[in-house]
């Protein structure tokens, strides 16, 4: 009797509860919709994320390569309990965020990749996925890491995340940080913003199709000349002194 190998290879996939789409006004006055995407829309995301794997700036290459593999695995049923949200401005892709449920009370943030820069697009998208973990999935905490200094500033510093260094994160096995419910509640109304319901016209435009980014991040013109500014252009290392002092004082 033959074995149905697919049943063995495919992880048990618990259906992710629906995320009620939301929208927010950006500094540009544009309205950005953030909504959940299902497997059938993943091919569009892959097409727009792939070029970023060649952008050796702010760790776009690493993040994009990982996002590509994660959402491809999601679409092909090779990733357990993952969800994917997309941020769109006038239909155009602005950010992709994803994460997964580890246990009914524990979430794991995977990635945030912004395809529009300078408008807190990534920060808004990250906040929205935390909202999904806390308010929809009902998690008590979410484990988080950052690959880039910008991510570290936006998550660890802005939310004042707690250390969970005894727990390796699924992304590279590096020590985890934690967004607890208390920290999340503290960030409501300041970092976690947006409105519901999304006006029909906005939502229709977003769901009609994911349009390509008009101004995606590009590689640096001159890698050698860029070397000094490539890895911490935000000064995140300096902002992180609080934790360094804790380590020094321990």
């Amino acid at each position, binding site marked *: 009797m033959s074995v149905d190998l697919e049943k063995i290879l495919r992880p048990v996939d618990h259906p992710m509860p629906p995320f009620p789409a939301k929208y*927010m*006004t*950006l*500094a*540009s*006055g*544009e309205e950005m919709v953030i909504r959940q995407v299902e497997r059938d829309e993943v091919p569009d995301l892959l097409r727009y994320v792939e070029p970023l794997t060649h952008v050796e700036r702010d760790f776009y290459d690493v993040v994009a390569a990982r996002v590509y593999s994660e959402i491809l695995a999601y679409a092909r049923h090779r990733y357990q309990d993952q969800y994917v949200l997309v941020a769109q401005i006038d239909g155009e892709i602005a950010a992709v965020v994803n994460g997964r449920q580890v246990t009914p009370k524990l979430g794991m943030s995977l990635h945030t990749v912004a395809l529009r820069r*300078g*408008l*807190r697009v990534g920060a*808004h998208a990250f906040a929205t996925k935390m909202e999904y973990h806390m308010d929809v999935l009902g998690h008590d905490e979410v484990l988080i890491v950052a690959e880039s200094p910008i991510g570290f500033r936006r998550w660890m510093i802005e939310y004042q995340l707690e250390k969970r260094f005894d727990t390796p994160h699924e992304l590279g096995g590096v020590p985890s940080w934690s967004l607890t419910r208390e920290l999340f509640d503290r960030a409501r109304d*300041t*970092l976690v*913003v*947006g*409105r519901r319901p999304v006006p029909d016209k906005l939502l229709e435009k977003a769901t009609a199709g994911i349009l390509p980014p008009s101004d995606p991040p590009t590689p*640096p*013109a*001159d890698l050698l*000349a*860029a070397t*000094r*500014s490539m890895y*911490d*252009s*935000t*000064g*995140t*290392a*300096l*902002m992180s002194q609080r934790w360094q002092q804790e380590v020094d004082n321990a």
Partner: protein
Amino acid sequence: MRDVYVAGIGITSFTRLEYPLSEIASFPAMLAMQDSGLTDIEQVYVANMGGPRVNHQTALASAVVDSLSLTPAGAAAIENGPASGSAAIKEGFLAVASGMHDIVLVTSAERMREVNNLEATDFIATLTHPLAEYIYGVTLPSHAAMFTRLYMEQYGVTERHLAMVAVKNQNNAMLNEFAHLHQPITLDGILDSPEAMTNNPYIAEPLRFFDACPVSDGGAAVILVSEEIAKSTGRPLIKLAGIGQATDTHAVHERENPTDLLAVRRAAELSFGMAGLTPADVDVAELHDAFTILEIAESEEVGFFPKGEGHIALEKGETALDGRIPINPSGGLKGKGHPVGATGVGQAHEIVHQLRGEAGERQIAGAKVGFTCNFGGFGNNVICLTFVRED
């Protein structure tokens, strides 16, 4: 003194430029030489503020003159804080006006994004008084915030006025291919919407994120020549008709009324006096809006509007592209960017561009008189330039 004219201009994009500082200075210089058709440069001045500290580059003028194959022309670097650019133009002017040289290249460069934002902010803060300000943690944003608070109390300026400056200038920058910020903003997005406080948080209350200029890299150049040379180029005759420079106390708290920018007032008076013009004659101006409040304050001090009424003129649209006195059509420091040592030359570039009628969609129709205010320190070393199109 001989009359002095601008025969050529050049500029880089103001953005993040990942090239050596000397190349950032050389590129606009080549464009200016190409623009003027002049290559027999006798003297080179290079404006820069942070090379030695930020880029580990000293003797910049020596590097630039060689990079441009202009040796054995004379060359010197000029450092005068954020007014370095206009200070270099002043030196160039004197070299030609005195009869010592006929063709002088003034170029400039800054590459601040080589370091992170905190280090860049600290670098700029080194222009404050070392014993009375810097050691207490004063930065330019905190200086500007205290200044803004006083201005609000004395003259009724509100956060909405500041946001109006930001929106105007950042949207002007959309029309400038050289500008750092090509991102339109709206009052709804940065002030009125439920998300505005997250989009535009306070950085030094009452100043918010969009009240500050970006940290930019960039360079700009002008070629200053005698009247005879200017006429030989066949380019429009743009005369550098007035230069005024003035200083004020280093420590801001030592000023009788810190909201009075006396150096701006004095520099503008000197510049207009030398040109034989008045503020009412100006068709287009580039003011030093490192923070939005500074555009309002400077617009009063240079004489465009009575003291305390700059924000009212702003409300009426008088400083818009189609207003009575358009201010910062380039986007200003707020939208075009602020590579500190190059900013003054960048302002001159825009004014010459405007007076030549070459500014494209942001062109001020029929502009004949242009004015710049390059605000060094926190208003303690200011240079104002007046340009006139003669033909």
